[in-house]
């Protein structure tokens, strides 16, 4: 993997495409999974990942290196995800369906999801969480990302994030437990 500083210098020196292709190669897959675990559906994750890189392309000239390059990209991706989920919430309200109901329908038809019923229940439960809480839950539950790192991306204190995670955990657990017997 090339040095981030070298890639950024190359980008700012005008070799933008070559440098940016290296960034996508270095961090694309990691960012993808960060996004995918939160939004769940591949097509949404793909769209948000590409949008993240489009925004990064536009802002990279002004990147000062106050944080690492991946942390910076992660922050852009997280903001894109939260904006997307907030927009989706408005659409869900208009459709008079709940997020878990819509997610259940999508997962049944999704070729890129091969989980069993318990896994589907977990994803439905995650879909029921408010956007910011969803991000925190996924980061801690799946990746065990340190609270300090999540704090840098979301701009809130670690104490507040811990409160959010533990509340989300309780909600997800109760959602799954309440429905698990129905599916058996």
């Amino acid at each position, binding site marked *: 993997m090339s040095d981030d500083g070298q890639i950024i210098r190359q980008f700012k020196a005008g070799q933008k495409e070559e440098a940016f292709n290296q960034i996508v190669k270095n961090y694309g897959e990691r960012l993808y999974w960060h996004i995918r675990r939160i939004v769940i559906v591949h097509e949404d994750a793909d769209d948000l990942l590409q949008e993240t890189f489009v925004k990064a392309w536009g802002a990279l000239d002004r990147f000062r290196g106050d944080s690492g390059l991946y942390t910076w990209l992660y922050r852009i991706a997280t903001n894109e995800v939260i904006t997307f989920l907030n927009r989706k919430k408005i659409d869900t309200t208009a459709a008079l369906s709940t997020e878990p109901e819509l997610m259940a329908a999508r997962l049944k038809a999704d070729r890129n999801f091969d989980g069993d019923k318990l896994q589907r229940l977990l994803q439905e439960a995650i879909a029921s969480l408010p956007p910011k809480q969803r991000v925190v839950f996924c980061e801690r539950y799946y990746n065990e990302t340190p609270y300090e790192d999540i704090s840098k991306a979301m701009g809130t204190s670690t104490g507040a994030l811990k*409160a959010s995670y533990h509340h989300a955990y*309780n909600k997800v657990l109760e959602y799954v437990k309440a429905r698990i017997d129905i599916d058996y």
Partner: protein
Amino acid sequence: MTEIFKNGMYKSDDILQNEELRKAPMTVPEGYFDTLGERVMQRVATSGKQQHGTVRFTPRKWWPAAAAACLAAIVAASLLLWTPLQPDATADADDEILDAIPEYLDLSAESIAEYASEEEAEDISQDAIIEYLAYNGLGSAYLYEQLADAE
């Protein structure tokens, strides 16, 4: 089937601790990452954002933003002192968060410790909870009032 049962009983009451569940069963189309770079550059080309970015994380001149923030804080403090709390304090908050306020405010170190280490639970103070709810669009003054009413 994810193995959480034994003889019809949950092996553990906390289903989420099952390690198999933490492996999200998601796949990607074959070759997706191999062609990602190409698709990103196509999107960059069509987005019209090659010259001008829209994201600014570190403003070059911080003092106008800081001055505006100070003025906003002074105005907000004045309004809080002179006007009664209105439902506007919740206007920007997510409905889920609004519904969950009582649960959040009731979060105790004991309940959090069920799923967290003692060390983690110690850091979750009432102020941290208030801060998180404020981050989600609720006025912190409104929240402290809710706390006082609950006591």
